[in-house]
């Protein structure tokens, strides 16, 4: 299966109630797959092609406000258009899963893979003090798995979850292990599990209101403080990463998504040359594994951040390392994927010799 198709199949099997999207390369296969699968017949899931990404994300707001499992997918320029809605959903504490199959920017940029939306994803692309749980798949299997995981986290913390993929993972074909169908929740179950949802004001309860607005600054500050407590809780509980060849490593690559896959080959090439390098692959970009990077910084002689960008995650690595070891960035931009040999050269030039 292609990564994008795996995401679509996972959506149906996770018991998603609604997908709302708008075509954009390189992720249009998600909606194409869903439309072809007729999820309305399989599970009753709604799939709707909206008039824009602005409309799609606001459809997510409406659906999530009713306690429904809703999701969308897009690519960088479309995700930029969604930032308003994402900020509103963070403010109104609404759960959803959003897939960004990143392409090179800025602007219309290119349709080729990139990782240049890291800042937008992890530092808050829209207005206001909020964070998005950001999951970075590096395989088709993870494109599949992160739908279910994403919904679990989204509802646990009542917050939007972003799956930050890229054009290579979205288009790549790999074998995928598929889960059993999770049933969609009934209205009674939604009312019971999510008493905040606008499902209609049943007798005996006050009306429910979904809003991000509070004009009283004292109350709005308390709301912001509550959001911040939630983000700290997420940082405490949800950090995920993978370590490859780190036990004997003298040097470390930190890379996620497609770059992490390139680095596996680079690691092999480097070790053939006698350079002991390991890989730390952050799976959650927010929350970022600062403590683990710091721990590794105490062991290795240098860290190379490998990203398909001008160097965005490297800022988080620098924050984690606190000067304990040398940190450099190597990246390609505009839709170019670095070759494994290039990365080894960069390690030698920038870290070992530099």
């Amino acid at each position, binding site marked *: 299966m292609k990564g994008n198709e795996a995401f679509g199949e996972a959506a149906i099997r996770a018991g998603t*109630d*609604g997908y*709302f999207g708008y075509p954009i390369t390189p992720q249009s296969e998600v909606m194409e797959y869903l439309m072809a699968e007729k999820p309305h017949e399989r599970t009753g899931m*709604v799939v*709707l092609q*909206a*008039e*824009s990404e*602005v*409309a*799609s994300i*606001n*459809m*997510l*707001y*409406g*659906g999530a*406000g*009713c306690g*429904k499992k*809703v999701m969308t997918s897009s690519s960088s320029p479309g995700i930029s258009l969604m930032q*308003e*809605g994402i900020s*509103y959903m963070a403010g*109104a504490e609404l759960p959803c899963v959003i897939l960004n199959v990143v392409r090179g920017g800025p602007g219309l940029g290119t349709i080729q893979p990139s990782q240049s939306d890291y800042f937008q994803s992890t530092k808050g692309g829209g207005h206001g003090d909020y964070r998005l749980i950001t999951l970075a798949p590096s395989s088709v299997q993870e494109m599949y798995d992160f739908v279910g995981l994403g919904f679990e986290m989204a509802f646990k913390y009542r917050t939007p979850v972003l799956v930050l993929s890229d054009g290579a993972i979205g288009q790549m074909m790999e074998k995928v292990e598929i889960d059993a169908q999770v049933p969609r929740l009934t*209205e009674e179950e939604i009312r019971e599990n999510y008493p905040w949802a*606008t*499902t*209609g*004001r*049943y*007798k005996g309860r006050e*009306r*429910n*209101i*979904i*809003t*991000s*607005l509070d004009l009283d600054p004292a109350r709005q500050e308390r709301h912001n403080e509550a959001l911040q407590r939630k983000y700290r809780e997420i940082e405490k509980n949800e950090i995920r990463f993978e370590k490859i060849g780190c036990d004997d490593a003298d040097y470390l690559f930190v890379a996620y998504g497609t770059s992490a896959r390139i680095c596996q080959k680079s690691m092999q090439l480097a070790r053939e040359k006698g350079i002991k390098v390991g890989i730390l692959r952050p799976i959650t970009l927010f929350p970022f594994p600062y403590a683990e990077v710091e721990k590794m910084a105490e062991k290795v002689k240098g860290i190379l951040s490998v990203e398909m960008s001008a160097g965005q995650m490297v800022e988080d690595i620098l924050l984690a390392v606190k000067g304990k070891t040398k940190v450099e960035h190597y990246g390609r931009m505009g839709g170019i994927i670095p070759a494994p040999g290039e990365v080894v050269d960069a390690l030698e030039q920038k870290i070992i010799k530099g």
Partner: protein
Amino acid sequence: MAETTIKSQIINPENLVYKKTDLMTDKVLSYCPGCGHGTTHRIIMEVIEEMGLMEDTIGIAPVGCSVLAYEFMNVDMQQAAHGRAPALATAVKRLMPHKTVFTYQGDGDLAAIGTAETIHAANRGENITIVFINNGIYGMTGGQMAPTTLPGMKSSTSPYGRDLGMMGHPLKITELVAQLPGTHYVTRQAVHTPSNVRKTKKAIRKAFELQKQNVGMSFVEVVSNCNSGWKMTPVQANHWMVENMFPYYPLGDIKVDGEIVPNN
């Protein structure tokens, strides 16, 4: 003593001639005296109560003067980003087709920043009801020019009057959505006189009844005054509305049973 007797007679349940619907909260309305929002809120909530729809209704509030509509309407409500109410309503209705879903939007929200959402929700024939308050101005932000501001009309961003060559024409979005096959019932009403209030209430009731029949979008425009934005007293503003707004935005049904009403 006599006064007390009269008072107690008035509050005798059998003498009661009017009662505020429980679907309006007791919160004091934030609207200016003489504005049409309060009346329109009440009409919608009365219709929902009379039709027994309280447990099944989800309303969507806009950005504009009525951004706090959810403070006054005592049903489940969501507050949308500016212009996006029809997108929210689309998802709510599609995910819960047996619910009654309405949006409540002003002219800046519905006919400027939310034009795409309005047109496409109408064109998809979403089974929702849109209540559209048109007062020809941005009220909440302090009286700026709206897409519906009349030719020559003064506002804080058209201080010498709306110049059509420079600022474009007032948008008759209600006539526009009536052209789309996805709308079933499109009407324009007002709430400045008791008889107009009754007509508007009938129109809103019809809109909600049609929603239950799944025949497509029902769209009710209410032409209102914005006395503070127009810099008039409420009485002057109503006269001005009758003399200036109604000729440009004539009252009456525009589309009934999916057919355009001739001569409108």
